[in-house]
């Protein structure tokens, strides 16, 4: 808190003191915030202007949809791979091959396949976290104490029940922790997608600022991105602490 306050204070002071180019490229908070408040948090030209909250919402929906789909898919893939040796042999080289492809690299293909739509963004987020989460799920499954499975089977659980009632809850916290640490990758992927392709969302604000030579808009966009990313991380942390608190 203190460090953020000092940073903003320094920035403000240097913006007020320094004249000319620097202040226009890096307008101090008081200046760019005033500009945005005066326009009622609406961004854009004339009738196209839309509230900044719409952009935040658009980006959030994309990130969350992509992460949710990837989370569920990764757990299911992990389950499949852990249950079937054939599936492991045939799929795991593919996983290791696809995992290092940066999500940003998928943007051109995604735009061609899905067009300029939410689907593109969701797909890119998915690609950004799915593979790493699948590998994490497999690692977590290997970490489950062998006693758990024996105990459950001993008490009458079928293999499927063992998976649902024991393995799944045992791996969820670990996989979710990795989802949280990969949130930043997903977040960046969506922002880049919004900058280069999609016409709305937080990334698009920055691009609009660039196209209009509007440094205040760019800085405001950066501020919103920083604050929202921070907020999402806190929410994910809260979920981890309240709902997935146990450790195996």
């Amino acid at each position: 808190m203190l460090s953020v306050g000092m940073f903003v204070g320094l920035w403000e002071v240097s913006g007020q003191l320094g004249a000319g180019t620097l202040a226009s490229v890096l307008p101090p908070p008081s200046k760019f915030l005033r500009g945005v408040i005066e326009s009622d948090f609406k961004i854009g030209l004339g009738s196209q202007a839309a509230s900044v909250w719409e952009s935040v919402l658009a980006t959030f929906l994309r990130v969350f949809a992509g992460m949710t789909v990837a989370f569920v898919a990764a757990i299911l893939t992990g389950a499949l791979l852990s249950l079937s040796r054939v599936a492991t042999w045939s799929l795991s080289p593919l996983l290791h091959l696809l995992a290092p492809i940066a999500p940003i690299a998928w943007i051109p293909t995604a735009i061609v396949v899905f067009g300029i739509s939410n689907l593109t963004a969701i797909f890119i987020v998915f690609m950004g976290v799915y593979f790493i989460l699948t590998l994490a799920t497999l690692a977590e499954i290997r970490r489950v104490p062998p006693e758990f499975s024996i105990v459950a089977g001993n008490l009458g659980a079928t293999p499927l029940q063992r998976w649902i009632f024991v393995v799944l809850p045992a791996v969820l916290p670990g996989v979710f922790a990795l989802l949280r640490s990969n949130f930043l990758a997903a977040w960046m992927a969506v922002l880049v997608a919004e900058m280069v392709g999609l016409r709305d969302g937080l990334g698009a604000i920055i691009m609009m600022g660039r196209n209009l030579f509007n440094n205040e808009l760019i800085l405001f966009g950066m501020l919103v991105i920083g604050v929202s990313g921070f907020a999402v991380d806190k929410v994910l942390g809260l979920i981890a602490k309240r709902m997935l608190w146990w450790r195996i």
Partner: protein
Amino acid sequence: MLAPSRLAPLAFRVERLTVDYERGTSPLQDLDLEIRAGEITCILGESGCGKTTLLKTLGGFLIGRDTGGVLFQGRYLAAPTSDVVMIFQENNLFPWLNVRANVGFGLRFQLGSRKQQRQAVDRILDLVGLDHAASKYPHQLSGGMRQRVAIARALVTEPQVLLLDEPFSALDISLRRRMHALMQSLWEQTRKTMVMVTHNVEEAIQLGHRVIVLGGSPARVLIDKNCNFTAIKDRYGPEFLSLQREIEDMIYEGADEE
């Protein structure tokens, strides 16, 4: 303590049991053993002599890696069964479930109404003295309490046999003695067959109706003693001490051969 009859029916008959592990080691080769129903049988032996392996075969957990056979109540054991429940030294409890849910875990795969299941869980928690801790989670419990929950969970599904793999090794002496008293009273109330693997000679003589010492490589039965008479239960009495010495000598001799 009432003595089970010498003619008590067999719970297990182990016939020429051989277990092969993947790295070519065979902790057990051609082992023969009988375990009577309704008794507490304690199995002693130095580390790595195959005690735990034997326990796992009794539970049917090594099916496919063993040859020879284990007969449970006269029939070859083909798979783990809920009639024979195993309790481990640790990692028994699911950390995401509270005590009540952990104890009731096995019941959800059985018939019976929610209400009946709840009553069964309450009854068994009362029996092990944990009714006050029903809504706690495993990480909030002491090691002794965790093992009591594990025992409660094993008993609630009403199995015929409990297999205990060094269940009290991680506990300190006073806690362990209290657990012994609990096991004794549980046995008196339920008359279950119990097979317990332990490192602790004192524990084995104190709790066991019968004490078996395994040793050698491959393992064979070195000592097989009936401990089911009042005199031997006196911790400082001559019978107790002489058996304790005999067993300890045997285990250390076995270790010297290596």
